[in-house]
């Protein structure tokens, strides 16, 4: 009960969840605590509540997505909202309509919340300026994927009790990764020590200024780590050659039992999915029930998204 009282005191200052960069520590704690209450609900036989009954949620996905879109859809439905997922392939966007026009059209239908994924960084920010409802960023370009970072934090807390003081390595295609950026901001905010490990061609400019230590040697980067977050090699975003081959990448940057040895004995393996087995991660490690929490991440993703929908849903 004490915690509930504390929670009510927290005020979320914004209507939109555009990125971890915009959140304060107390806002993050509020979201994480709220999500914890949904973990149990999602395991029970009656998974539905009426928190968002009468509210309308539109999922606007401009990029293909399986887990994030279904996770948001399920989250909205379990909270009792009416959820509509826009299929962009058949929409006016393909007929040349601009993002703002699409937003204005949807806005006229009075949704309470729009969940958006877009290939262009900053697209949710543009949307948020134009619509009356709340906007939740489900991933924009290379910039942010806030709910992914929040569910990663929840997974870590669920297993380790806290994030503070842990040593976390984020490995792989940092350059193209919004998951990496959101996680760097969030894990730093929660008091972890963050290493990034990647080949030089997949490191963004001045990444060290975001508060991370940079490694190009997997064994040095994983040394003594509590958490190993692997990223998907985003070949679809790569124009031109960044790497000699998948084989060479796996040899030096793929997570294998041999490289994992330098991390803590009980180090957890995470991955935002979908995985390229045998490219960034050894297939047996990915399925190792003692080390890998990859499926738990998916499970807790629904809880995090329920918390975010509840907290950010436009208050009338």
């Amino acid at each position, binding site marked *: 009960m004490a915690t509930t009282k504390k929670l009510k005191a927290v005020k979320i200052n914004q209507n939109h969840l555009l990125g971890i*960069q915009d959140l304060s520590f107390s806002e993050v704690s509020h979201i994480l605590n709220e999500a914890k209450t949904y973990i149990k609900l999602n395991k029970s036989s009656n998974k539905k509540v009426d928190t968002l009954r009468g509210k309308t949620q539109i999922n606007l996905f401009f990029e293909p997505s399986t887990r994030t879109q279904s996770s948001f859809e399920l989250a909205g439905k379990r909270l009792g909202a009416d959820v509509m997922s826009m299929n962009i392939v058949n929409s006016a966007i393909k007929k040349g309509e*601009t*993002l*703002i026009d699409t937003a204005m059209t949807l806005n006229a239908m009075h949704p309470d919340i729009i969940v958006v994924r*877009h*290939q*262009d*960084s*900053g*697209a949710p*920010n*543009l949307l948020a300026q134009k619509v009356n409802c709340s906007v939740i960023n489900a991933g*924009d*370009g*290379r*910039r*942010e994927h806030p709910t992914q970072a929040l569910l990663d934090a929840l997974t870590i807390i669920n297993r380790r009790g806290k994030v503070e003081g842990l040593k976390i390595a984020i490995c792989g295609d940092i350059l193209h990764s*919004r998951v990496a*950026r959101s996680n760097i901001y969030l894990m730093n905010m929660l008091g972890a020590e963050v290493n990034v490990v990647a080949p030089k061609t997949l490191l*963004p*400019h*001045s*990444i060290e*200024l*975001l508060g991370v230590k940079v490694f190009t040697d997997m064994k040095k980067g994983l040394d003594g780590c509590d958490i190993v977050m692997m990223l998907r090699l985003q070949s679809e975003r790569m*124009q031109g050659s960044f790497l000699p081959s998948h084989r060479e990448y796996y040899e030096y940057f793929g997570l294998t039992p041999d490289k994992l040895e330098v991390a803590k004995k009980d180090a957890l393996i995470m991955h935002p999915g979908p995985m390229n087995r045998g490219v960034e991660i050894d297939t047996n490690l990915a399925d190792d029930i003692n080390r890998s929490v990859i499926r738990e991440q998916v499970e807790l993703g629904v809880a995090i998204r329920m918390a975010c929908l509840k907290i950010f849903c436009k208050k009338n």
Partner: protein
Amino acid sequence: MKEKYLINARIIDPKNNIDEIGGLIIDEKGNIKATGKKVVCDNLPSKSEKIDLKNKILIPGLVDMRVFVGEPGYEYKENFRTLSNAALSGGVTSVVSMPNTLPVIDNISMVDFLKRRGRDKSRINIYPTASLTKNTEGKQMTEFGLLQRKGISAFTDGDKAVQNPQLMSRIMNFASQSNSLIIQHAEDSILASGGLINDGEISTRLGLQGIPALAEKIIVERDLSLLEEYFCRYHISQISSEKTVSIIKKAKKEGKIFSTGVSINNLSLNENDIGDFKTFLKLSPPLRTEDDRKSLVEAINDGTIDVIVSDHKPQDEESKRLTFAQAATGAVGIETLLPLALELYHNKSINLNKLICTMTSNPAKILGIKKGSLDIGSDADLCILDINKPWVVKKSDLMSKSKNTPIEDRKLQGQIMKTFVKGELAFERT
């Protein structure tokens, strides 16, 4: 036309080393008859027109070396009439127009059209450029000799660089015999491909693909190497980074002859101004770091950079109301060129004479035109300036057809009060 006596002014004419209190006489043909401290109130002939400038500053009308007009093809962004009005309100009396129209200015039949439209619809002097290569495709050079004979002032692919070094060497070689001025927009298109803003911490945070400073430097280095073998009149349109400044400084010290420009945007803004994905600040070359900006200011002071341009690129609202990646590149700036540049005078970064020089006599010299000075006998193209007048930039006040200013709501000090073209009062601020 009556003779005009412009009196009670501070006359600044960098080309003739004049900075003194006095006046200027415009003869019946619209030419400058006399200038300086000798022109005072007590010796006015009765039949002449007297204009008291009330201690304002009189400088030559500005020459802007980089301006995009929408004609033909993009009239909805800017036409000659709206450009002319915008230019005059900014004290600009001569512009070099870019060839990136629809169709591209790459053949002689287009030049007559441009000259006719420019003459009929605008009151300013238009110096049209033609493209370096057919349709700016970077494959086949245009007819330098024939185009020049029709009245083309210089050759440039405008917002593109010639990527092929073999073609570039032949362009320079050919240009040296036709005595053509070659203007390069220095950016390696492959290094810059997909890039949206400066490659650095901001691009990492915003998740926008970066354009490395190297993309600019590498083309400048290449062209300066080519210039050693194939000397011609060569001008770098505008540069943006400290790296390029040091290359140019070194080359000039070695005695290489060429010239360099910079956009007022890169002198007055930096990448931090992009803030929350402001598409009006999506520019080419991109805004870079504060250190880069400072190095560009320093390069004006030490003569490494010769010219300041507005890089006036009108874009309609629809092409900017998009995500940053989808939005068009460029900003309007011809109206605010001088007032924004004066910020650098007021904050003591650049002295007034130098500043005016880079927007008058220097570009005129590079272009080989009789403009940008108060030479006796030259056209009386003049700009009258209140150097201390404070004002705020508002989109709604802009004369340009497009309103994509990167400095909306900026407080500036210094405003153009009157503009004369060929001795006629063409603009007056009330």
